[in-house]
């Protein structure tokens, strides 16, 4: 208003530059107000009626106080019967519209009793980091109404630091408490002297405990989450490489272990020098250890880097700092803790990374450890490294793993399975066609013919194919956009259905599209000029594919060789004793590979193929070998794969430029896949009675190898 009045005044004063300036100013202000309003409104619409502010982790040192009177109600005690199915309210999840749990953190407050004594001393650094990780995680929500999981902001990591009664009252006062339903507590030290309870002894009601120190009696299977006790100094022992040379075979480093354990260890030490038993030094200091009975001093936890196996004994508490320290030092933990629940044991298979020995059988320790093969020690070391880096290396990793577990419980069918949690990247992934079966003959195969305009040869081919007993359908992929395919009436009349598919672009990849029209498992991809294969050969090829349904099975074969001069891979089409590729100009493969070719082929490979109109067959061989780690199978003896009529084709194949390009493909694809996946073999498949002096008519396949 004022602006416009002033503006009008200025217009009157007839100073054009001012006039322009104020009009511009007016417009800018107007625009910014509108934008601000729109932005505000837009975020309103998103969040419902109120906006929620991301929790700020600030002023930890003087938080707002909440005074709880002495007669304030206390929350219900820990419910030891809880299962996911009856204590977790599933209806609170799934309000976000995406398949991800939403986690809310209560605002930071300091709860004090009537005398002003707080429930917890200062929040610990670790709990601060936990809250920070929650807020920064992908699961975090500021909106408690869409939250599926609630994290109280009271630091419950160490039971010895909290006042249980007051904390229970504080919990009851939480806005969304509802008997602790869908709440999650982090706890690393539970119980205190002298009974050392294995659960957090505050009234947590139906809440989930992510705790260290459960035993198998107190851990509620499928509900609680077992976490390790975090060692603030574990990172000092971190080691980035796998070190095979380790001075000590076994290191026991816990201070003041049970005399039974100590006696057993000392007994063993009498006969074995590879055993190092450490204890506290005279001047107690966690980061210094002395050899038991001597004064030789070691720096802890770095000393663990020198051990192949590190002992983890049960103490008063089930959870021991040494576990994380040993993992960091890449020392294989030996767990001597009856009834222990290992961290994240519901998803992590500790058998792959640790050795378990029952307390009563500690005397068998060295027998058991010495029996372990070098190969297994190697693989356990790799697994320890993998587990530590992925799940245990920081507070953030612990928190995220905990939430991933909850996420997988709420959305089990999008969750990770055993392999996803436990297999290292270096362990070869399993072939997607892993069921050991011979494919049924009854289904037959679909012939997929990629053609451009060679109608005459196409018809000869279709006619020939129709004589193969196991053919179930012919699919002609018409790759010529300028010309229409010949009318169906002009096609050879055969007893099997023929389908013509017109493509949208002349791309070689079209040959490997998983068309709906292909209903069989097996696809015979065949070029329209490959008319020299006999019905017996094709039928036998199909028989071979049935026995190897996860491989490419075909006729013309090629191989790859390493060229020492150019230091690159070369494509070889000479008569060699080895094969590593089968050309898809005449080959059987499972339809799943077509799907993979279309969906997961590295973009650079697919683009290269479509751009150069070449090497689609090499790409397919790379793809299958990369997934299965198996070579293709060549069928029947070599023949001349060129037709005398098609001069152009011969020209193309003979063209040196063509060969050079294909060598480039092999080299380029190797880079795209990050390795050379092709495998060479020295065999091909023939019919059992091939070339045998045996009446031809008694052979099931006799027209094999004719030129």
């Amino acid at each position, binding site marked *: 208003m004022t602006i416009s009045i002033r503006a009008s005044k200025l217009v009157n004063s007839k100073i054009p530059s001012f006039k322009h300036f104020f009009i*511009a100013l007016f417009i*800018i202000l107007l625009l910014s107000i509108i934008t601000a309003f729109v932005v505000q409104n837009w975020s309103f619409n998103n969040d419902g009626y109120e906006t929620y502010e991301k929790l*700020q*982790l*600030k002023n*930890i*040192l003087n938080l707002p106080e909440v005074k709880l009177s002495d007669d304030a109600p206390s929350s219900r005690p820990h419910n030891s019967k809880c*299962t996911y199915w009856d204590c977790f309210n*599933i209806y609170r999840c799934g309000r976000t519209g995406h398949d991800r749990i939403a986690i809310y953190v209560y605002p930071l407050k300091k709860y004090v009793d009537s005398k002003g004594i707080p429930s917890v001393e*200062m929040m*610990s*650094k670790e*709990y601060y980091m936990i809250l920070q990780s929650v807020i920064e995680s992908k699961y975090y929500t500021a909106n408690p109404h869409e939250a599926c999981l609630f994290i109280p902001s009271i630091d419950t*990591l*160490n039971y010895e630091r909290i006042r249980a009664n007051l904390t229970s009252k504080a919990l009851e006062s939480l806005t969304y408490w509802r008997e602790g339903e869908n709440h999650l507590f982090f706890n690393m030290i539970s119980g205190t002297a002298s009974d050392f309870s294995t659960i957090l002894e505050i009234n947590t009601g139906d809440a989930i405990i992510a705790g260290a120190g459960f035993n198998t009696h107190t851990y509620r299977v499928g509900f609680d989450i077992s976490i390790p006790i*975090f060692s603030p100094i574990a990172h000092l022992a971190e080691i980035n490489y796998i070190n095979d040379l380790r001075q000590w075979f076994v290191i026991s480093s816990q201070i003041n272990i049970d005399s039974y*354990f100590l006696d057993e260890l000392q007994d063993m030490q009498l006969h074995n020098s590879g055993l190092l038993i450490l204890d506290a030094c005279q001047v107690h200091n966690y980061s210094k250890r002395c050899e038991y009975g001597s004064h030789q001093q070691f720096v802890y936890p770095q000393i663990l880097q020198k051990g192949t196996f590190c002992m983890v*004994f049960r*103490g008063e508490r089930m959870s*021991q*700092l040494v576990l994380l320290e040993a993992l960091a030092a890449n020392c294989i933990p030996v767990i001597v803790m009856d009834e222990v629940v290992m961290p994240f044991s519901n998803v992590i298979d500790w*058998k*792959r990374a640790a050795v378990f020995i029952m*307390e009563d059988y500690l005397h*068998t320790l060295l027998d*058991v450890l010495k*029996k*372990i093969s070098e*190969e297994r020690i190697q693989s356990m070391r790799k697994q320890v490294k993998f587990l530590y880096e992925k799940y245990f290396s920081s507070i953030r990793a612990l928190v995220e793993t905990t939430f991933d577990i909850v996420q997988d419980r709420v959305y*089990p*069918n999008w969750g990770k*399975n*055993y*392999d996803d949690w436990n*297999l290292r990247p270096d362990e070869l992934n399993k072939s*997607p*066609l892993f*069921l*050991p*079966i011979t*494919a049924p003959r009854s289904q037959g195969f679909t012939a997929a013919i990629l053609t451009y305009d060679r109608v005459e040869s196409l018809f000869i081919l279709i006619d020939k194919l129709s004589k193969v007993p196991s053919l179930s359908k012919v699919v002609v992929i018409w790759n010529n956009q300028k010309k229409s395919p010949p009318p169906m009436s002009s096609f050879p009349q055969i007893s099997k259905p023929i389908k013509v598919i017109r493509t949208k672009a002349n791309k070689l990849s079209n040959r490997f599209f998983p068309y709906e029209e292909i*209903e069989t498992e097996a696809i015979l991809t065949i070029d329209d000029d490959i008319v020299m294969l006999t019905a017996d050969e094709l039928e*036998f090829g199909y028989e*071979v594919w049935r*026995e190897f349904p996860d491989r490419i099975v075909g006729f013309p074969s090629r191989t790859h060789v390493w060229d020492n001069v150019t230091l690159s891979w070369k494509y070889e089409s000479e*008569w*060699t*004793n080895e094969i590593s590729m089968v050309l898809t100009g005449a080959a059987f493969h499972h*339809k799943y590979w077509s799907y993979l070719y279309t969906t997961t082929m590295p973009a650079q490979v697919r683009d290269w193929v479509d751009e150069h109109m070449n090497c689609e067959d090499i790409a397919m061989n790379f793809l299958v070998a990369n997934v299965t*780690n198996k*070579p293709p199978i*060549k069928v029947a003896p070599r023949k001349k794969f060129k037709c005398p009529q098609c001069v152009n084709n011969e020209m193309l194949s003979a063209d040196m430029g063509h060969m050079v390009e294909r060598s480039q493909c092999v080299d380029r694809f190797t880079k795209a896949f990050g390795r050379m996946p092709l495998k060479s073999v020295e*065999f*091909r*498949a*023939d019919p*059992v009675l091939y*070339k*045998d*002096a045996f009446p031809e008519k008694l052979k099931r396949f006799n027209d094999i190898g004719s030129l």
Partner: protein
Amino acid sequence: MQAKKRYLLVFVSCAFLAYCYFGGYRLKSEISDTEINFLPDFVDLETVRTGSAIRHKERPISESTNECRMETCFDFSRCHKDFRVYIYPPDDSLVPSHSYQKLLSVLEESRYYTNDPTKACLFVLSLDTLDRDRLSTDYVRNLQIRIQRLPYWNNGQNHVIFNLYSGTWPDYAENGLDFDTGMAILAKASVSINSIRSGFDISIPLFHKKHPEKGGEPGFVVSNNFPLNKSYLLAFKGKRYVHGIGSETRNALFHLHNERDIVMVTTCRHGKSWKDMKDERCDEDNKEYDRYDYEVLLQNSTFCLVPRGRRLGSYRFLEALQAGCIPVLLSNGWALPFAQVIDWSKAVVWADERLLLQVPNTVRSISPTNILELRQQTQILWEKYFSSIEKIVFTTLEIIRERLPKQTPRDGTVWNNSPGALLTLPQFSDSPLQFPFTVEESLDQFTAVIYCQLGSLVVPSSPLYRLITSVARSKYIARIIIVWSNDKSPPPKGRWPSLPSRIPLNVLQFSSDPTKPSISQRFYPHPLIETSGVLSLDEDTVLTTDEVDFAFKVWMQFPDRIVGYPARSHYWDDAKGSWGYTSKWTNDYSIVLTGAAFYHRYYNILYTEWLSPLLHKTVEQSQNCEDILMNFLVSHVTRRPPIKVTQRKQYKEQPPNGGRSPWNDPDHFIQRQTCLNTFAAVFGYMPLLRSNLRLDPVLFKDPVSNLRKKYRQIELIGS
């Protein structure tokens, strides 16, 4: 000029305001990062207690048996030597149910069995505990008293109690076994995660009365079509309980029925008095129910709903698993069978009874690739652990065995992949790379094991002499072992062909019982066999070095199979109603003779330590068929046929002047046919599989100069 400056000023101030409004929070968070340094650690390392356990031995033993753990309720000292199972002698007055009889007979025939209670680690009752539903006909009365009378009961310590049903109408209580199981390990169906004693009890699947004792039917999945095109997406056909425990879920299923791709049909027509109890939906339901056939649904549906019944588990679970119809579980709190070792998330879909109406959405959102995986895994699990009572019982025992001290563990990759833990013996190796189930590039040598039964002379012209020299010329040979199994003592050292020093030659004589040497000795896992590859030979086998080299190269690609030269086949003889054996030249084969074949040394261990004693007896008695048994074993493990290489069919030196060798004796054939049938009976099915192809060198008989060919000798050998 002035105006420009003003514009600039306005822009700058606007930008600043905007920054404060939108991006200012960044400034704030930087402040709090320093605050963390003022906070204390959650634990004071200098005072933290790391030691001094309270040993459980010193703990009071008053813990109830509900709290049993292996460490507290199991006597490991009984299991120090061997893992053996004792079965109490049958009580003549009580005949156990058919299922329990099968279970006991499986155990009795197994390698776990012992009839000496002092050697036993585990005890199994001969009293039938499978059905503890008081209303059932198989219910054994007064079990409590009978059990108390058992001589080794000892409050159930080291006993395993198998149970399928507990409790009865109306609450079907899980602990309703009607007797005190004490410290016995329960192997029980339909248990909930809350009642299972963790690391102690074992959940087993509910199986039908008709469940086979051994062998068992294969899964129904024979092809891996992608994407899987089934007429129905999700199916269920079964009983509905109008009221009572477990009725809620099944009563609500009709909401999901759409007659198109989701078929959910229920009936209340079961039990004697269903008409009295029926509700308003019953008639309508029954009509719809009769429109669909159970088997047809099972075969033609991608997913099968497995809701809880009165108890948590149902027969349907195993039926769906076998059919490859991916089970969709609707049974909150059920501890799935063998869940401590099997990762069920690879084979089933978990639904939540509380979110019944979301089931169609959940199922629809599972990708075709995922379906392909889940479906294959159902078959692996079915065939490895569930298809027969034998497998279920052995799996239970193996889970217990893994808990004993000093056991080599088998991790989840072994349990959840083919061939599974029952066929992966931990005593062989603790590293998966040592087993034949992964292709290792580092396999580069083999050991030749020559079995000498005839006691042939060793002179330069004798077949044995020539065999040794041609095998020794192979690039890949590591050692030659002669298994001398003849009354005559083997020729002295000097008589054997002289070999390069890198190829040691060992002559082993089995002197245990020289009058009756066992032919199975050729497969004895001798410690001298250090290579993965074993070339098994007869003393009169004829092979060229090229053939040996080529076959070894092929075997390296298929280390889990038998790769050899002469092949045989089996066929079903309809007229006789039994299996037949033929050595005729046929278009396919299913057996490769071990007189000349490569295989992995792991199979020696399986052959000697895993096969049922019954099978060994058959071989012993006939002094024949050991090669057929080896083929049975390998096909059983891999579920793939053996591999024949090259043209060679005759591999024996023809005996001069028509002399008799055991191999051209007509009785020999009849005997082998008998073996074939005995083995099939003991295995419970016919494991042999046929192959239509043989493998030749890439340039075999190709019109190209012989100089280019790597394996030239092979060209010269006719059939």
